[in-house]
């Protein structure tokens, strides 16, 4: 119940700050555009690297989105009030993490048409692609929410959150880029499943770990 209350609060918060979410989307789209300049105008190369561009753009955009999600809590010291409630910090963490996960999934899904248009990298396997995005967003959200809670309380948050988070997300990035490329370019060896499995394993480790450690982060 506490979890649902927290999730409701966080989703409401995301909805009411939707101007921010659309700015993050605009940033992601701009990043996709800029990344294509790094590869040159060769259409085949662009199509080949489309998955990588999508995930790098999403990763950078997610850092903005994650840090904003905790900034609002600390701006008016709302977090202190939340911690005074007879609610477990675990519920607060999972509420926030699930809200971030949903937000990042929507962001990723919205960036896909941009990728299709810019790089001619379309696929009709829409549901597997959405599955990859959902699993990847979950992998970003679990450790991202934990670290954003720390970074939001620090002066150096703009540099600290990406510095802590991005090396950690190397497996997520690898798996998502591979899986997306396989969907776009075709999957003759049927490797998609093993990359999805890697994402599932990453999530299976970091979702429980985040809940376990969040209490330490929030209460200190």
């Amino acid at each position, binding site marked *: 119940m506490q979890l649902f209350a927290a999730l409701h609060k966080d989703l409401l918060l995301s909805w009411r700050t939707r101007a921010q979410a659309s700015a993050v989307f605009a940033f992601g789209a701009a990043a996709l555009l800029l990344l294509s300049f790094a590869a040159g105008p060769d259409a085949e190369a662009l199509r080949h690297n489309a998955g990588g561009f999508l995930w790098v753009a999403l990763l950078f955009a997610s850092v903005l989105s994650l840090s904003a999600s905790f900034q609002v809590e600390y701006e008016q010291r709302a977090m202190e009030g939340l911690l005074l409630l007879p609610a477990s910090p675990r519920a607060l963490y999972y509420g926030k993490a699930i809200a971030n996960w949903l937000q990042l999934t929507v962001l990723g899904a919205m960036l896909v048409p941009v990728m299709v248009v810019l790089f001619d990298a379309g696929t009709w396997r829409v549901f597997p692609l959405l599955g990859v995005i959902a699993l990847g967003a979950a992998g970003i959200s679990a450790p991202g929410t934990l670290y954003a809670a*720390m970074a939001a309380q620090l002066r150096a948050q703009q540099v600290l959150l990406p510095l802590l988070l991005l090396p950690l997300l190397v497996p997520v990035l690898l798996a998502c880029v591979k899986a997306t490329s396989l969907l776009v370019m075709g999957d003759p060896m049927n490797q998609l499943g093993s990359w999805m499995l890697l994402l599932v394993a990453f999530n299976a*480790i970091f979702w429980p*770990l985040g809940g376990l450690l969040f209490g330490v982060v929030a209460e200190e």
Partner: protein
Amino acid sequence: MSQSTSSPAAKGDRSRLVAGILIALSLVLLSIGSYIGLFVAPPEFYMGDVQRIMYIHVPTAWNGMLALTFAMVMAVAFLVTRNWKYDTLLEAGIEVGVVFSFLLCVQGSLWAKPTWGVWWDWDPRLTTVAVMLFAFLGVLALRHFVEDPVRRAAWSAVATIVSFADVPIVYFSVRWWNSLHQLQTSPKMMDKAMARPLHINALAVMALAAAFIILRAKLAETRLRDQLAPPLPEANPSPIALAGAPEPATGGKA
């Protein structure tokens, strides 16, 4: 900063003595091991003399991993017991681990250029070490930016555990992604003449790492003591001065 309330200066002298003995031991072992490795052991069949970097590369790798594992254990120990001793050891372990990981990347590049023809290769172990280097550099940066010692200790313990949990996943993901490294070297596959200097050097580097950790933890303890109980005009610090510190500086377990 642990159990005894006896003079910290005496304890500092003792750990300095232990570290000094370890460093001396390490230098002796390192010169013996390296002498055997460089002049006595046979050159490797395919790589020739280039392979001799192994006698320092592999000990660095083993002990770097050991230092980071040690830091992870200290992180858990701190969160469970809230004893400041573990926080200082955590800081020392991560710093030594980061330095060793960096050396590992440099040595690996030096070896890879004549052997593979490139400085860098996206091999699972090499890439994992590089990712770990950045992940734990992030933990050190976190320690640098958090001023409150209580928060710093708890948060860096959290970040250490999270980063450490990532290591096996990074390794497997990169291994699936791309691989061309030679087989893992284990002393069992090696000739005795090659294994002996490797073992001697591994011990030597371990002694060196232990000495660094002891000295670095001592330094961290001195700083922490200063932060938790700043020198006040009076002998008994007021409760206000200790606000934010869960225990007095001389205390043991919380």
